[in-house]
């Protein structure tokens, strides 16, 4: 079974795996410069114009696998030499233009930008064109196409432009680190920085969890990942890597659902604070709405705080689908609780760097959270959990009117309406990725089955309600 959606993910994975392998062996500094040649032995180029360019780009990927440029605060970075400088000419007439007689394109164009040559073929005058796309819609041969860069198309917050050399350029003041461009760039020219070396270092210096314990907190999206193995085997694999134990971030979600529903009933209006991409988007685009963002930490930070309260020496590594979590853990209010954030892509690389075949392992258990904590992984789950939280805490008098925003564009619309007092809702569930966390850029696979996998995992929970799941945490 294929482990990744795209060949770009596979390439990134191979680099991460090599970096991790050398790090475990303590030979990274000595052999780091050999990695590009190990992965591209040559002599024939398979990806770019020549093996030398391939290796030069791989050297940059190695840098990102080792944490990237520390001076650049953004966890998402462009590998300029890997950028293919895709055309971005906007609407253009292609060879499919038959030179017809109808000239619908000409009639519909509001700016008179379309002319015809002596073959009756259409041309767009770029000095007049306003990129409205009307011509493309009416052409019966679909001969007019929009050349837009995949990264720019993916970036709904419009943080990507091009530099003087036509390579992609990220505006860090707009970027929310969601990773949509990372997943979409067909050349792998934009990547998230990796903190696998921090995780390996934490594990190694803990000396088999004797000096301190390293806890892995895993996001509920894990249930839709590693489809080639059983979830219990993934848990055992994580422990085999040297983690002391594995804890569900979904239990943090149960804690958040209980607290957030109380906060909502008290304040009357809230936006969720679970998705770091969504929160960053409000900070950067709707600063006036910041007071409405729930004061609860995210599920990841909430459960990690609990872990550090019960075991002050604990170290916590979060493993999830999300690149924006890498930015969240750097925030002042979260960094004391979470020591590093990894993605599922990186977890796969870690397994293979130690040659751990999880499919042959015994099944471990992962079960503390309720159905409601677990379904946070998909869009709509958070609002459902808040409704349940209100019910369980006798706050049903508060009439919940949620709006679940699937992807950052829907978030934008809801926030815009709220800023104009036009929103007919009192709770905004904001998910930067389409589908929710299951659409995250750090997922190994993205597919139509993911949502049902999360729901199935939710229904398998031993605890049926939020109250049941969190009661054990208040045992003092």
């Amino acid at each position, binding site marked *: 079974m294929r482990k990744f959606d795209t060949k770009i993910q596979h390439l990134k994975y191979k680099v991460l795996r090599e970096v991790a392998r050398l790090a475990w062996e303590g030979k990274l500094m000595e052999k780091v410069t050999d990695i590009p040649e190990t992965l591209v032995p040559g002599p024939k180029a398979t990806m770019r114009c020549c093996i030398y360019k391939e290796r030069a780009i791989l050297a940059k990927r190695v840098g990102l696998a080792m944490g990237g440029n520390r001076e650049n605060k953004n966890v998402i970075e462009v590998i300029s030499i890997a950028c293919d400088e895709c055309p971005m000419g906007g609407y253009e007439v292609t060879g499919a233009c038959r030179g017809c007689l109808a000239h619908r394109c000409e009639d519909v164009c509001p700016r008179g930008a379309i002319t015809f040559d002596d073959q009756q073929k259409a041309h767009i005058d770029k000095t007049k064109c306003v990129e409205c796309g009307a011509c493309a819609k009416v052409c019966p041969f679909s001969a007019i196409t929009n050349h837009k860069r995949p990264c720019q198309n993916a970036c709904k917050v419009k943080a990507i432009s091009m530099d003087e050399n036509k390579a992609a350029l990220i505006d860090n003041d707009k970027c929310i680190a969601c990773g949509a461009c990372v997943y979409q760039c067909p050349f792998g020219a934009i990547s998230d920085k990796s903190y696998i070396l921090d995780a390996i270092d934490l594990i190694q210096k803990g000396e088999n969890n004797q000096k301190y314990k390293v806890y892995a907190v895993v996001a509920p999206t894990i249930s839709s990942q590693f489809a080639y193995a059983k979830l219990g085997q993934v848990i055992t694999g994580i422990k085999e890597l040297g983690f*002391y*134990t*594995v*804890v569900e971030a979904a239990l943090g979600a149960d804690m958040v659902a209980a607290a957030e529903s109380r906060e909502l009933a008290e304040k009357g209006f809230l936006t969720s604070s679970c998705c770091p991409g969504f929160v960053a988007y409000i900070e950067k685009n709707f600063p006036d709405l910041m007071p409405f963002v729930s004061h609860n930490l995210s599920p990841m930070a909430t459960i990690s705080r609990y872990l550090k309260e*019960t075991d002050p020496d604990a170290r916590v590594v979060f493993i999830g689908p999300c690149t924006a979590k890498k930015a969240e853990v750097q925030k002042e209010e979260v960094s004391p609780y979470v020591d590093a954030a990894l993605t599922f892509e990186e977890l796969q690389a870690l397994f293979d760097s130690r040659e751990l075949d999880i499919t042959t392992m015994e099944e*471990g258990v992962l079960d503390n959270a309720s159905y409601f904590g677990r379904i946070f992984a998909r869009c709509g789950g958070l609002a459902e959990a808040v409704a349940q939280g209100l019910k369980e805490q006798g706050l049903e008098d508060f009439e919940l009117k949620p709006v679940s925003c699937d992807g950052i564009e829907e978030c934008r619309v809801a926030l815009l309406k709220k800023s104009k007092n036009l929103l007919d809702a009192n709770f905004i569930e904001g998910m930067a990725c389409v589908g929710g966390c299951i659409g995250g850029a750090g997922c190994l696979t993205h597919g139509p089955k993911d949502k049902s996998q999360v729901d199935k995992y939710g229904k398998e929970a*031993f605890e049926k309600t939020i109250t049941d799941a969190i009661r*054990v945490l208040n*045992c003092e």
Partner: protein
Amino acid sequence: MVVQICIGSSCHLKGSYEIVELFQAALQEHALEERVTLSGSFCIGKCNREGVTVQVDDTVHTGITPDGFPAFFETYILNKL
């Protein structure tokens, strides 16, 4: 005395919460809430086939079940105070 009850996934499924409740009731019954601190711990690292793991100060006890709880409480809590 510090009593840590394992609430890691393995023990949780074997009834951590029941043991927590039994502890709370027993401490109340004997008015020992001030002398015994109860806390949860994510995995004590002694996952067992049966029952819950409980750590009393530095000593780890495994396989605590509701049936065995009264004897356990007498021997390892009351007796050690």
